[in-house]
């Protein structure tokens, strides 16, 4: 029974965390809706938008097109790809043809300077960037017309070195996408808002980063982060270390996750978990303690099931559904309300995924495998004899199974 109350205690702290997230998100969305901090009249500094592309993201055409519809007077868009056979190349070309008056450049150049493929893409795009302000924008985000106008105003203040944006998951049409969007719109958004509001930690979401070339070069440019998986975090930390402010804009951008499988959802959060474990160290344990749903189910796993343990799990799951629904509404995530019933299931999966980073340092990302080290520093995946042998056995079994089916 003592063990049961121990779990109740941890669950209680998790619920306090949920409350803090709700308050932080409410305060964040209230300030973003009120338009605080907008100063008029203002200058519109020219911006180079760097879009690293690899493969087809959900809704890629619309994502790229949203940048052509920006209501901003001076900007160029640079699509960067590693090779011409990438399916995203055709989409980028169609966008360029559709908007002939827009300043759009497509850069196809192989670069393998670093281990982070996104940074490799950014390095080639950066060489073509004409303007002093650069915006790094992932290919899976879709923005509104006023996005650049809103975020660029922060850069009018010379003490600001980097502006990032909060993301919300949208457009889910499959189970994996629903889970992904639920997680982005609860744990990720809630966590970032709590860190920003209560702990005053510089939070950088790599999907949208606006900065000056001068500051990027002062921290060593892209080549200084080419081997880090969390290049966004490192850039933010280093710009902060220069004495510049790192701001989180109130402008929400859409992260489009439409047709994801559950496997992809698990892979992404295993990768992100490994990243946080390598960066945060012991702080990573607070994530497990903060997963009240997962903790509330543990008594039923390690002790005989009782009415009390069932009541605990049911109560916490209900609270979490309300929490996610509240945050989703605040973010205007436009999700079917019934989908919030998946929240406890998602948290149980995330609870299990939490353990993987402690057991494995291998990261699989966009077709490559790496070993992740401190601060997310990547090193090549070692092809040891034993591993090659293991791979051969697996391949042989798979081939045999495929033959037996035909």
């Amino acid at each position, binding site marked *: 029974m003592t063990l049961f109350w121990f779990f109740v205690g941890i669950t209680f702290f998790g619920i306090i965390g949920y409350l803090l997230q709700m308050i932080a998100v409410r305060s964040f969305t209230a300030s973003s809706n009120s338009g605080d901090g907008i100063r008029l009249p203002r200058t519109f500094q020219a911006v180079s938008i760097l879009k690293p592309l690899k*493969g*087809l993201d*959900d*809704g*890629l*055409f*619309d994502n790229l097109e949203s940048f052509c519809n920006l209501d901003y007077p001076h900007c160029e868009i640079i699509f960067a790809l590693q090779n011409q056979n990438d*399916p*995203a190349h*055709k*989409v980028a*070309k*169609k966008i360029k*043809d*559709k908007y002939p008056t827009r300043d759009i450049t497509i850069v196809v150049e192989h670069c393998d300077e670093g281990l982070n493929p996104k940074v490799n893409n950014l390095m080639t795009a950066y060489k073509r960037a004409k303007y002093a302000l650069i915006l790094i924008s992932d290919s899976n985000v879709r923005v509104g017309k006023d996005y650049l106008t809103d975020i660029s105003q922060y850069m009018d203040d010379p003490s600001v070195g980097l502006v990032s944006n909060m993301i919300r998951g949208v457009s889910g*049409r*499959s189970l994996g996408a629903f889970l992904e969007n639920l997680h982005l719109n609860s744990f990720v958004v809630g966590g970032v808002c709590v860190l920003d509001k209560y702990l005053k930690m510089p939070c950088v979401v790599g999907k949208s980063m606006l900065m000056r070339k001068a500051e990027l070069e002062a921290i060593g440019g892209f080549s200084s982060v080419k081997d880090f998986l969390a290049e966004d975090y490192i850039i933010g930390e280093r710009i902060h270390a220069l004495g510049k402010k790192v701001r989180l804009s109130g402008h929400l951008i859409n992260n489009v996750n439409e*047709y994801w*499988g559950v496997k992809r959802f698990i892979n992404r959060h295993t990768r992100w978990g490994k990243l946080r474990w390598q960066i945060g160290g012991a702080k990573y344990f607070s994530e497990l303690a903060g997963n009240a749903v997962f903790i509330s189910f543990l008594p039923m796993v390690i002790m005989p099931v009782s009415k009390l343990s069932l009541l605990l799990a049911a109560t916490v799951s209900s609270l979490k559904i309300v929490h996610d629904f509240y945050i989703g509404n605040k973010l205007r995530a436009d999700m079917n309300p019934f989908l919030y019933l998946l929240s406890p299931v998602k948290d149980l999966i995330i609870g299990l995924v939490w353990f993987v980073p402690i057991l494995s340092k291998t990261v699989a990302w966009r077709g490559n495998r790496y070993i992740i080290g401190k601060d997310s520093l990547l090193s090549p995946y070692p092809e040891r004899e034993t591993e090659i042998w293991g791979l051969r056995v697996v391949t042989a079994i798979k081939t045999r199974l*495929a033959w037996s*089916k*035909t």
Partner: protein
Amino acid sequence: MKAMLLCDFHIHTTYSDGSVDLRRTINLFGQAGFDVIAITDHVVNGDNPLGKLAHRFKFSVTAKNFSTYLSHIKEEAEKAQDKYGMLVIPGIEITKNYLTTDNSAHMLIIDVQDFIPACISYEEIFLEAKKQKALTIACHPHYMSGKGDRDTLFLWNNREKYARYIDAWEIANRDDVFNVISLQKYPHIANSDFHKPKHLYSWKTLLNCAKDINSIKQCIKHNKGVALTLFRN
């Protein structure tokens, strides 16, 4: 150098047994940068229990809803042309399912104008398609992986009789490649047989011709400037 057209001529929607509705299906291909697609929902033969089941569960376009189907495709095709510069061609997949794989056959009628029932004879179907100036394609004509009892072998087994009516054969369907087609040197194309989003990543056709329906039909019929590509992300 002019890029070849990225095409898929075998796509199902919720008008038959696809899992994605027409608008979303077209958008999915448009978002992925395709140049030409054909929507080809099943028209199932209703003259046996299998076909009757398909009709009962609305897995078939029928004479009754054909005009709605066609006008819906045309409406969405206009939007796709404006937004993505993508050509969307209306089509159907004549689906003759029987209890034995040797008697079953599926064929695509591309650029269909009027309803063609699946329960009439093969000759009648082909002649009607020709009358409508539509393209006829024998789909998944040989043994497929993992489908077993759903193979459709009739047209291949009777190729000497029917090859003259068929404009092209599917040499690749989704993940399968039918090398027998190339051995016979038949005109060929490759398609996804799209039923759900993951089927987007499959065999496709590349055409070296202008992006209009007549040029595309000629290109496939003459089978010059036709290439296959395994479209992967």
